[in-house]
């Protein structure tokens, strides 16, 4: 079993002004998806990230440069992530296909990334 990270990309705050009914509808779909994964032991975790109020840290000419970020004006931020379990990328993809995130807004998309399995790497290195 391998682990995969699902990064939920979106424009910041696309969902803050939604009426309650719409919000409830969204939540029901997310929770239904999450529950079905959880019940099958396929969901290892997840967190929601705030759309702004963070920091970007970079080194420039050997000096650390810290700035606010992401900005509310950003085009694309990671709004949250899930960690899922699947035997391979194909299964992982099939699990993420049903995630409601992509259908909730045209600018929403999900990035599916295998998490490097250190045990396997070490084994391969012998």
């Amino acid at each position, binding site marked *: 079993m391998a682990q995969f990270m699902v990064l939920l990309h979106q424009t910041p705050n696309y*969902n803050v002004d939604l*009426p*309650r*009914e719409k*919000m*409830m509808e*969204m*939540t*029901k779909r*997310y*929770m*239904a*998806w*999450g*529950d*079905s994964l*959880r019940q099958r032991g396929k969901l290892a975790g*997840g*967190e*929601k990230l705030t759309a702004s109020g963070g920091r970007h840290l970079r080194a420039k000419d050997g000096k650390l440069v810290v700035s606010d970020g992401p900005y509310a004006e950003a085009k694309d931020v990671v709004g*949250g992530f*899930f960690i899922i379990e699947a035997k391979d990328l194909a299964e992982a993809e099939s699990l993420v296909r049903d995630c409601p995130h992509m259908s909730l807004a045209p600018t929403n998309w999900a990035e599916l990334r295998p998490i490097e399995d250190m045990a396997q790497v070490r084994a391969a290195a012998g």
Partner: protein
Amino acid sequence: MSTVHRLVDSLARDSASRLVASLARRLGAGRIAVAEDAVQHALMQALSLWPFKGVPERPEAWLATVARNRALDLLRSESRGVALAEELVPLAPASQASDGHFDRELSDDELALLFAVCHPALSVEMRVTFALKTVCGLTVPQIASGLLSEPTAIQQRLVRARRQLEAANVAIEPPPPEALPERAESVRTALYLMFNEGYSASSGDALVQPEFCVEAVRLARALAAHPMTAAPASDALAALLALTAARLPTRVGPDGVAQLLEDQPRDQWDHGLIALGLAHLDRSARGDELTVWHLRAEIALLHSTARTAGETDWPRIAAIYGELQAVDPSPVVALARAVAIGRAQGPAAGLAALPDLSGNPYAEAARGVFLGELGRAAEARSHFERAQALARTDPERRLMAKRLSSPF
């Protein structure tokens, strides 16, 4: 999947209204809006966080904590807020969430809030709007569409209502025993109007707003069940609303045309609600009080229990409307009485009893029916045309169109 749906719905509805009531009672009538905002915030937090983290073990307690903290944050901007912090600490969910709209008991906090928002200092329209928003947790757009109004107008009405409560120094507390009968009657009147707004929507594509009816029945039943407000009149109101709500499924036919009582398929009435209504009616008979609610409930009973439209006891219904007209006269009652007389004694008697209500679509339609039955087709047609022009909802307009297109 359906568990998730039920949980989210019951949190948004039952838990939220319980929490608003509980917070508002502690904050005071002037801060009902703070309580609503805080609970709304907590609910939104829950809705956006739980998909990631899963549902906490005690969802309502989670909501209560977040709402309380939010209320404190909102109050910190006020100087008086700090002192309230201590009082707010014991805030905790009162009871378990339930899954039925009709059967949930009203907490003491909610009853206190219902009394506050149905205070006689407020107009009946204000009471209904306020109760729908604060006790039932409906949104402003939902209320606006149900009450034929603009969201901004509803918002303003709510602001005025809150100010009036604050100015009148109304506490969110159950009224003292000596004031209880009058205050309970003011609540019953508001619930009756709330139900009617749902049962005969005053405009729009839909003839009924089932949401309003469901809420009114729920609150009426809770009023009848709560030890403080249990009274024959409360049971009579609950019976009236449940028996009438039983006919909701057939008010509009599958073709979107309003259906007359006599044309409704009675096997599609909600027999569970009829049984509930009968139980409340039984209990309303204790004591010797006979209120307008008893009279109205008996009429609803006669309709609900007639196996066919032809078996309806119209003479008895006409007589009860007569009694109602004597104690609580209104043009609507006079019209209903005339219709009953027409059914009991024939169209000529009905026509003679009709009140002069030109401009009312139902009165025009009733006149059209009686004239048609008397063979005066041309006159009947002109009244149906007027009724069609005056009709307030689309299903009613289409019913009149259907009338006009069929031979008299």
